[in-house]
């Protein structure tokens, strides 16, 4: 069985590595450094770490000021407080100015678990996608998370990175070439395509495995970059297979599924169905229990593919 690592752990490691390479990197947190793993950076580079306290709006405002002054700023809290609470600060002070801030939001989605619906961001990708110039990333595993975070540091401008609390399987080899805006194909297939994002990519791969046993040949795409989306990968899936199932630990409103459907409608009409959170709030529970109850497991994904027939 593959190793399991939470993408927030990958974030902590990537920050320490980046901090050694680049003096311009500054990290902010809002009293959650032990959970977002920015404490790893704070331990090594205390002079470049600032705790904003429980004040996310001001944290993202300060991040803008630091970035406009030449710093590359990584500013972290839970996704609900970043994309949710601080939305308008991110929109006006970071998006509108093009500030070089990397909004690294952890504890996204239902797999926050026991903390319950108040802490389960299921709309963050939708919110961040609407901001002009915002790059939106949602890595699936440890390897792609670290590579995408480094790519985010190397590009100029605002980036939203969605990271998870729960440990998830490592699916990529260390040598895998991961680039912002270029989808990864885990598995080729000619019958249907599953386009997944974030920590459900491994569930999508498992679903394809199950379906293969039934003689259904499924392509699996990891759409780690929600924006700018790899349109070519979507169009090819629409044209070369008989239908697309999108998979996300996010509301079906405004996230991956909506973006894929938009591309298909405009450029390559295809049948699309949506595995995601169906316009409802989550609740307390273990991550696996929640994925099961809200229809986000490999079995649910496989069912969605079968239903396309």
């Amino acid at each position, binding site marked *: 069985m593959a190793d399991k690592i939470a993408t927030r752990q990958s974030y902590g490691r990537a920050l320490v590595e980046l901090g050694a390479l680049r003096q311009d990197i500054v990290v902010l947190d809002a009293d959650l450094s032990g959970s977002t793993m920015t404490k790893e950076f704070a331990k090594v580079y205390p002079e470049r770490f600032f705790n904003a306290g429980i004040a996310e*709006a*001001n944290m993202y405002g300060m991040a803008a*000021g630091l970035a406009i002054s030449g710093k590359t700023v990584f500013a972290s809290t839970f996704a609900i407080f970043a994309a949710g609470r601080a939305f308008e*600060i991110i929109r006006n002070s970071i998006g509108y100015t093009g500030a070089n801030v990397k909004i690294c939001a952890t504890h996204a989605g239902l797999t926050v678990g026991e903390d319950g619906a108040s802490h389960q961001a299921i709309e963050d990708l939708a919110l961040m996608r609407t901001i002009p110039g915002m790059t939106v990333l949602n890595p699936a595993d440890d390897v792609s998370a670290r590579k995408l975070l480094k790519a985010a540091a190397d590009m100029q401008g605002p980036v939203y990175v969605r990271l998870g609390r729960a440990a998830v399987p490592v699916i990529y080899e260390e040598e895998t070439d991961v680039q912002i805006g270029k989808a990864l194909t885990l598995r080729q297939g000619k019958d249907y395509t599953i386009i997944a994002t974030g920590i459900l990519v491994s569930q999508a791969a498992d679903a394809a495995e199950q379906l293969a046993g039934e003689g259904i040949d499924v392509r699996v795409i990891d759409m780690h970059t929600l924006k700018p989306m790899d349109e070519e990968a979507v169009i090819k899936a629409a044209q070369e297979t008989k239908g697309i199932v999108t998979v996300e630990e996010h509301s079906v409103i405004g996230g991956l599924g909506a973006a894929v459907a938009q591309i298909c409608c405009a450029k390559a009409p295809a049948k699309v169905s949506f595995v995601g959170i169906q316009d409802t709030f989550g609740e307390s529970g273990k991550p696996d229990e929640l994925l099961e109850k809200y229809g986000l497991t490999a079995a649910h994904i496989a069912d969605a593919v079968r239903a396309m027939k």
Partner: protein
Amino acid sequence: MDKKALQEKAALIRQHIIREVYHGGSGHPGGSLSATDIMTVLYFNEMNIDGHNPLDPNRDKFVLSKGHASPALYACLAEAGFFPKEDLVTFRKLDSCLQGHPSMLKLCGVEMSTGSLGQGFSAAVGMALANRLDGKTSRVYAMLGDGELQEGIVWEASMAASHYGLDNLCVIVDHNGLQIDGWNCDVMRVMPIADKFRAFGWNVLELDGHDIDAILSCLAEARQHKGTPTVLVAETHKGKGVSFMEDQAGWHGKAPNREQAEQAMAELGGVL
């Protein structure tokens, strides 16, 4: 610049404000006129800035957190040589660099895009932190309205600036007492302002925001103060300098018609 020259410059800035808002057909004259004397002293005496070298890495920075006072900012930047004064009449027009609220990507010299109240203050705190990280002696100034103090982010930023001991940051509160819906004390009481900042650990200076000598001496005192950020709580009058606009909430965000603009210009010693 001496006091007399600063007073003359302030009169010119006020004339520009009326021209901008008249030609723009909309905008915020009241809070621009109340902030004029302080901004004039900042731009033409206090700050180390150069309109012909606007990106000097060692420059001081001014953030207009009360971004609706953009006419005053544009007037100062034009007078300081950041862009041609003739462009002031394009204020709020399509394709103009002079957006309704300041945009740093549209106009060089604008240090931070503002308009959504409170956010400029937070950005200024970040800029002051960056200066300190880089070992720079340059300073950051931020101007806030008094109604703006009702935004929660203001007190988050205030706490952070104090916590990090940012003595390279100077905030000015343009306390004209009025906001869109009326007097602060009727809409949402923000007073006592000085006591609030004192409680947050700031060095607080209170002054008449139209008294050039007082502005000069408070800014000098702020520069000398070490260990904590300084706030200047400046008592001002909305619409200062134009008789029919003074202390009138109705002139918060309204353009004068031609007759009113001509009268305003006459009172300010200029022509439209």
